[in-house]
């Protein structure tokens, strides 16, 4: 169980029940639990969707697509059953918000699923939980069982005459399954490999039926939107960036943790005030704004950024999943690039060539490079490889690996040059790594 943190600037919407024992259904009910569903049951499906549209709620998984739009894409009539999927395969490095929601407030997710189901006309929902979050499965399983016991799920929910079933499912530990179509493949019992799109899940999704797939945080926000009204939620953030967001501060920071802040919150303030600054009086070197797949920001850039979707997309970058990783001036950016690439190399599903071969090649080159075996042409080669992966892979994983690598090479080229000619890493003490550990150079 993670320790909870807090800061006065926080606006607690999704996290309002954190630390209050809301995993227990009775406690949850005391905290206004399941009221939103009952309200939604009185509403027309289109009204629910409009309410969500009004809230400007955008997908919290990282892509930032409008949730209301996503729901509206689902056809009203369908020969096949419709499904609601909760993407709880939170694997983006630096991101740990869904974990807290599932741990502290699982019922809000169930509530969100049911509301989404009411909005699009689905009768079945699946909560897909990351394989490594094994302990959360127990919490979710109990929450679902309790909800069934109370008659909140199953046949005739809340006596409304409507049926809704929620199942939990767990992955086997693959980052790739966080991609929505790969998640559906995994849920169907196949290899977690993304599907060809179009058709999009809203038309042909799980078992061929129209499917809404949303992030845990997105769905956990929905009950609050229904209760408080979409406009109020929207007003928390800047225009078109409705509401609050759980930001996960980690890295070289004094008070790491998950903070719920309104969208558009300045990054500088987030690091120095909310996060309490950088330990040991060191200086900021770089910030990963939203999980490892995003463009890495320099200290100067970080000073000017506001944390909302549009501020980033204006620069051709993106906000990501809310995992803010802070790096101080003693960090070796080559090592950081290597660490990130190791992750993507390990998690690449192997389906398409650029991602499978590109991440492997980059990992090998960066490993050699960081160990002092780098050549001048390797720097351009690393960038060349990343550029040729970008936008050419089957799913966004290749992009996710290419983007941080490209931005690190571009912004910290001098650090790469400092590793050349057999020199050891300038940030690591002598002898921490010897030439004998170098990978074989063919």
């Amino acid at each position, binding site marked *: 169980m993670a320790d909870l943190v807090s800061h006065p600037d926080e606006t607690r919407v999704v996290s309002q029940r954190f630390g209050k024992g809301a995993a227990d259904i009775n406690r949850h009910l005391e905290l206004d639990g399941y009221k939103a569903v009952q309200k939604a049951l009185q509403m027309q499906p289109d009204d629910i969707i409009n309410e969500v549209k009004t809230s400007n709620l955008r997908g919290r998984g990282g892509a930032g697509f409008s949730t209301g739009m996503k729901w509206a894409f689902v056809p009203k009539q369908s020969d096949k059953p419709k499904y609601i999927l909760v993407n709880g395969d939170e694997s983006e490095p630096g991101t740990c918000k869904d974990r807290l929601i599932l741990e502290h407030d699982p019922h809000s997710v169930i509530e969100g699923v049911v509301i989404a189901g009411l909005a699009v006309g689905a009768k079945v929902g699946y909560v897909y939980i990351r394989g490594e979050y094994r302990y959360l499965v127990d919490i979710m399983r109990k929450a679902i069982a309790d909800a069934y016991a109370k008659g909140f799920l199953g046949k005739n929910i809340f006596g409304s005459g409507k049926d809704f079933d929620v199942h939990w499912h767990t992955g086997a530990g693959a980052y790739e399954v966080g991609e929505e179509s790969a998640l559906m493949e995994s849920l169907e019992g196949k290899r977690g490999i993304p599907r060809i799109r179009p058709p999009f899940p809203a038309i042909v999704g799980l078992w061929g039926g129209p499917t809404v797939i949303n992030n845990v945080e997105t769905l956990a926000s929905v009950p609050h939107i229904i209760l408080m009204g979409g406009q109020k939620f929207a007003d928390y953030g800047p225009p078109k960036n409705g509401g609050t967001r759980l930001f996960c501060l980690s890295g070289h920071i004094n008070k790491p943790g998950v903070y719920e802040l309104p969208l558009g919150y300045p990054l500088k303030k987030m690091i120095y005030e909310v996060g309490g600054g950088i330990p040991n009086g060191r200086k900021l070197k770089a910030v990963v704004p939203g999980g490892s797949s995003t463009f890495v920001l320099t200290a100067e850039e970080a000073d000017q950024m506001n944390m909302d979707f549009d501020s980033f997309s204006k620069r051709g970058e993106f906000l990501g999943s809310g995992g803010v990783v802070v790096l101080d001036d003693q960090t070796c950016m080559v090592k950081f690039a290597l660490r990130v690439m190791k992750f993507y190399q390990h998690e690449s599903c*192997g389906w398409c060539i650029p991602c499978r071969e590109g991440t492997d090649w980059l990992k090998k080159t960066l490993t050699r490079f960081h160990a002092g075996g780098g050549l001048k042409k390797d720097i351009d080669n690393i960038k060349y490889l990343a550029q040729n992966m970008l936008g050419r892979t089957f799913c966004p994983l290749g992009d996710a690996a290419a983007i941080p690598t490209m931005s690190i090479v571009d912004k910290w080229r001098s650090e790469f040059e400092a590793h050349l000619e057999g020199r050891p890493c300038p940030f690591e003490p002598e002898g921490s790594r010897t030439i004998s550990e170098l990978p074989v*150079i063919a």
Partner: protein
Amino acid sequence: MAEPKSITITVDGKSLSAPAGTLLIEACKAVGIEVPSFCYYPGLSLQAACRMCLVRIEKMPKLQTACTVQITDGMVVTSDSDEVRQARKSMIELLLGNHPLDCPVCDAGGECELQDMTFKYGAAESRYMEGKLHKEEQQWSPVVYFDRPRCILCYRCVRACGEGMDVWALGVQNRGSSSVIAPNQGDHLECEECGMCIDICPVGALTSGAYRYKTRPWEMKHVGTICTHCGDGCKTTLGMRRSDTGMDIVRGDNRDKSGINGDFLCIKGRYAFDYFDHKDRLRHPLIRRNGQLTQATWEEALEHVGKRLKEIRDTQGGQAIGVIGSNRTTNEENYLLQKFARTVLGTNNIDHHRTTDFAGFARAITGKQNATATMRDVATASSILLIGNDPTEQHPLLAWNIRSNVRLNRAKLFIVNSRPIKLRRQAAAFLQVPEGRESKFVAFLNGDDTAAGSLTSPAVSNDSLKQVRDQLRGAQDPIIIFGSELRGADIAALVKFGSGVRAMFICLGDYANSRGAADMGLYPDLFPGYVAADGPHNFNEEWGKVPQVKGMDIAGMMQAAKDRKLAALYVVGSNPVTDYSFDPAALQNAFVVVQELFLTETALLAEVVFPAASAYEKAGTFTNTCGDIQLLKKAGEISSVRSDFEIIVRVADRMGADTKKLVPFGKGVHADMGQSRGAQSGEADRHAVWLTANNLDPRLSPFDPMAILDEIQRLVPGYEFSRLNLIAGNDEHVTAAEHSNAGAGNGLVQIVPANDSLFTSGTLGRYSHTLNSVIENRRSTESKEVMAD
């Protein structure tokens, strides 16, 4: 079905039209714009994994894969620009990172798609400096080897095996750069051993056990001929290499995919040519001397046979001689053999191993138009009824076509069988009926509801039977396929039902040319084209006097031999002693001549054995079980053997027959003795007139099968196909059965199905090293379980 509307797109400034829904890559290919790809393969599911087919489509932010994008009206595509070329080059670079550069050793070197693309898109200089992943080569089965580092993970093999073959023996293990194609049994394959995965592999990752490291692609001569095993008539391209004894076949594959089989070949087509140089292959004529078969010269053997047969014919008459033809000799040889029997030996005692009732089928469909389906039709029909047989085992191409049709066109398949055959997995309805009750189902189809009683079981209810019948009655031009379970009157009843729904039929017989043997009149009661021997016909005019009475069938001949009424038996490419389980002692007093590849049980009883050429070593035509005729091309060469055709002509010559009458060759041949009135002058050679009319020249050699083909085309109705198309290597459909004049059935029918599996093939299969080396063969002989089920 309405034709999808045609829409226009622009590719590289060229405007082109294609039906809506066409994939961009196919639309480009149709107009000759090549979009490269590894993972895309027509007919298999889409992968978009290799990213080679990336193209720029206007209004799309990223490059798009042409293999997954369906064309839309007004789409503007750039398939060849610096950006696109760079994208392709980088894919090749990435692939070559871990790909070993052992092209000089690799079997695929020279016909490798990765090699070709590297040449085309560059990436000649490697940026890669890291250690390559290496894994030892694995042997998955006697025919499949896997060299993992060469694999580019295009998943073609996985899909071909799963979707195409419905075997699902290959899959992917691990992920990322550790991803690896793996066989179903962990370290080895248990499958149908078809070798599709090898042929479809764009690189040299999957290699063939039979061909491995033997030669290089450009060293071989390639001959497209027909597989000599089952009755489906797949085209197989043989790779030939010169050797001490002539031309060796080093591999069989499916290079040009131009035959009726398209992408498909089974284990037999791909590997089971290997009987041709088996050490037991007969390479000299044998004559029995002092009770022992001893090596003789051709001269001695021919002289001996000619003399003895002439003696017997002249002293005891033709009816004392019997002839048994083959299911695997060419149409020309079959025709020649029966002509030899009827004109030179003077007997109608001619028969062959009947594996299905083609004669009964011909009687049933006489005079009907378009009553027989081609093998290609099976791949496109909207619904198919299969009664009896197990095509997966006995007619693999048919099974492939059925599967593809169900998968790609959502055809409806109805199966009636006494066993749970594997194709039931594709069936819309599978009715398992008690053994031998298939004919009851036919009666039920024809409206006899009482027949349902003997068909029902816990699995098959009265309702399900009726449902199937209703669907069949409403079917659009269905194809009805039946095996040897239905004979004689049952076929007639089935045809009666089928005529009501404009059905087309396929009668399934075993072996490469059993349909040809039937069409060519290897029957004691039927002349070529199923003409009743005792009915009206013009063969007397054409050939001279032929016997008017029906001859004896195989069983009759054996009985006559036992009763010492049959003095000589002439057997060509057949093993009646084993096929019909006859007592070998019956033949001890007869003069037995056998033309064979191997010393079979029948050959062991012979007085003279001629070593015959296999179908790979001669030319001619084969008619498959559907009636598709194709050209058999001479590929291999074994010195010292001769084709059955040549042997028959030479024996006839030694008997003093006029070979010009037997084989119409040379200028001015009077094949019909010129009794008819010619076109202009008083006496004309009808054959010469026909040749002239068809722009053909008289043949120059009595050993030229084409000379007999000329006569077949002239005399057998339904064999009027385009010769040009045939010679170009295409298939033509023949309809001798529909034009037959067989008269009433005579109860002579004795059908002995071959019951071969995927891994057996009569006599030839016994001598195929590959067929005998795969573990599935041993298992299939131990228990007749349905494979990979």
